[in-house]
């Protein structure tokens, strides 16, 4: 459960650093993809950095988190190692999943990160189960599960909500409402577009916030992680946001209307984060630049290391097959 952090300079810098790290990770990942080093589905988290950064910085490391097909940001905000992240996307044995999982299945079970999931909504019952374990073991922990607007229509998510309320479990449901499921706008996929109300049918309350303001996200998360833990009851935070681009790297997103894209442009979470650094932490442009350059360097180095890592050898893989 959340230990309240003082919102001081260091903390604001750490929030911003996490966001910029995610952004740059996705930028490098995109380059690698274009160069043919990465294949398969690659769903960039950019545009939504404030959510993972704000929510997960409010959690303790012995809490649990489950994520979606768009999971890089959650892993990084949870503290994932950059070399192992890149290695996984590159299919190298040093990756979090030895290169066997890839972008959609990246996870770190040793650190309570139950990881990304390629099936929309399926992480939700899994999160509920992690919370059930907490309750059985009488522990003081919380589970956060992420889902986007499209995932709010599937049975797994809806059954999960009801189970969490019926069983009184400490699950924070974070809805990253980026208003689209691939090319399908939220209005055409549900009769209730206020997604913070998705819990009303099951006795679960919710709130909608600006998902692009990392501080708002953090403070809300802080409050309701506490609520979930103390009451052993679920809660919903709907974070309004927007993808910075198409659904995945190969989707140009031509179907996105101009006004929606402008929503993102005018609310880039990095810009908002920068404003906080300037106004609340008194950082100069130069200091902010330094943070960014520092991140650039760290990313660049990690990438270089990852690119040198070997893939799993065929014979080792075939040994795995024999075990099955």
């Amino acid at each position, binding site marked *: 459960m959340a230990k309240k952090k003082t919102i001081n300079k260091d903390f604001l810098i750490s929030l911003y650093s996490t966001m910029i790290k995610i952004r740059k990770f996705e930028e490098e990942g995109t380059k690698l993809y274009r160069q043919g080093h990465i294949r398969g589905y690659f769903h960039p988290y950019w545009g939504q950095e404030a959510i993972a950064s704000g929510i997960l910085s409010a959690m303790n490391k012995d809490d649990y988190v489950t994520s979606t097909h768009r999971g890089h940001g959650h892993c990084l905000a949870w503290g994932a190692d950059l070399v192992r992240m890149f290695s996984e996307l590159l299919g190298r044995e040093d990756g979090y999943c030895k290169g066997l999982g890839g972008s959609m299945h990246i*996870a770190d079970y040793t650190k309570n990160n139950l990881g990304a999931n390629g099936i929309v909504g*399926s992480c939700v019952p899994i999160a509920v*189960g992690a919370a059930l374990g907490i309750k059985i073991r009488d522990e003081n922990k919380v589970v956060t599960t992420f889902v986007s607007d499209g995932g709010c229509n599937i049975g797994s998510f809806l059954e999960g909500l009801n189970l969490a309320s019926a069983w009184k479990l400490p699950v924070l449901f974070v809805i990253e409402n980026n208003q689209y499921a691939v090319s399908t706008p939220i209005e055409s996929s549900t009769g209730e577009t206020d997604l913070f109300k998705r819990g009303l049918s099951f006795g679960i309350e919710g709130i909608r916030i600006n998902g692009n303001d990392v501080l708002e996200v953090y403070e809300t998360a802080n409050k309701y992680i506490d609520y979930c833990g103390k009451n052993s009851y679920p809660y919903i935070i709907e974070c309004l946001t927007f993808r910075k681009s198409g659904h995945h790297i190969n989707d140009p997103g031509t179907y996105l209307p101009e006004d929606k894209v402008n929503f993102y442009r005018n609310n880039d979470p990095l810009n908002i984060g920068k404003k906080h650094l300037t106004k609340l932490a008194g950082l100069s442009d130069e200091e902010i630049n330094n943070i960014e350059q520092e991140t650039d360097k760290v990313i660049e180095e990690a990438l270089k290391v990852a690119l040198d890592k070997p893939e799993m050898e065929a014979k080792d893989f075939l040994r795995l097959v024999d075990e*099955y």
Partner: protein
Amino acid sequence: MSDTRELLYREALNEALIEEMTNDETVFIMGEGIAERGGSYKVTVDLLEKFGPKRVIDTPIAENGFTGAGVGAALTGMRPIVEILFIDFSMLVLDQIVNQAAKFRFMSGNTARVPLVLRTQGGVGNGLAAQHSQSLEAIFYHIPGLKVVMPSDPYDAKGLLKSAIHCDDPVIFIEHKLLYMNKGMVPDKDYVIPFGEASVKREGEDLTIIAWSAMVPKALKAAEILKEEGISAEVVDPRTLVPLDKSTIIESVRKTEHVLIVQEAIRRGGVASDISSIIQEEAFDYLDSPIAILAGKNIPCPFNLNLEKLVVPQVEDIVKAARKSAYK
């Protein structure tokens, strides 16, 4: 072996649950009506009293959700037993079983474990009709990462359920609605039956009958009748379909040179076909006649009781098929 006593299949299962829940407090069980009511087939009686509502959980009707909750609990250190009332309803939970539970260990690069037991129950019973009578083990059998267990008597039921609970990978444990009231000897002492060891339920020379679950008692009855006709049938029960004890099967076939596989599920795409394909590949030169398969009819289960009998192999059908196989 130590002292034994006679137990019902359902009692043997109940004992396994009680022992394992006593030994390991990460074991818990959930399902519909399993707590206060003790389960539709009385397999979970007394558990609520003994282990309390935190570890013996009545679920809402939300099979996909609570099975997924089982997966999540398993991933985070628990050993959940999830009961799905009828294997037919498992069609609602296949995403969590096929795409999630069966895949995590692999997708995580061997770091995740899903020690989940999915207990369920299948087969044709007394007029339960098309949506409550299916034999669907073949579906799970086809998915890498799952173990599939189908005990045919109380002794196996107890020993295999204990192994299932000990197993670090997901296990589909399929009971049969017509076996719950069958009796059998079960030792007093603690025991487990390892996966992948077939049981030769009866030895014979002329023909190997391979059968599992409710087809085993029927095959044994058929073997009695065949004996009177001078045909000595060996009855092999794989007990665990995954992992499959190929060597016991092949050994038996090499000895008898004639094989009949009996399954309650429909023939097309069933486990019997797979076992047949394995035998013909690995014991081709020993086969004296084609491998015969006797299976459920290729149609949903009818409600009418007289017609219901026609869709599942009966003792006389086994006798007839065995006769043909042995003599061809």
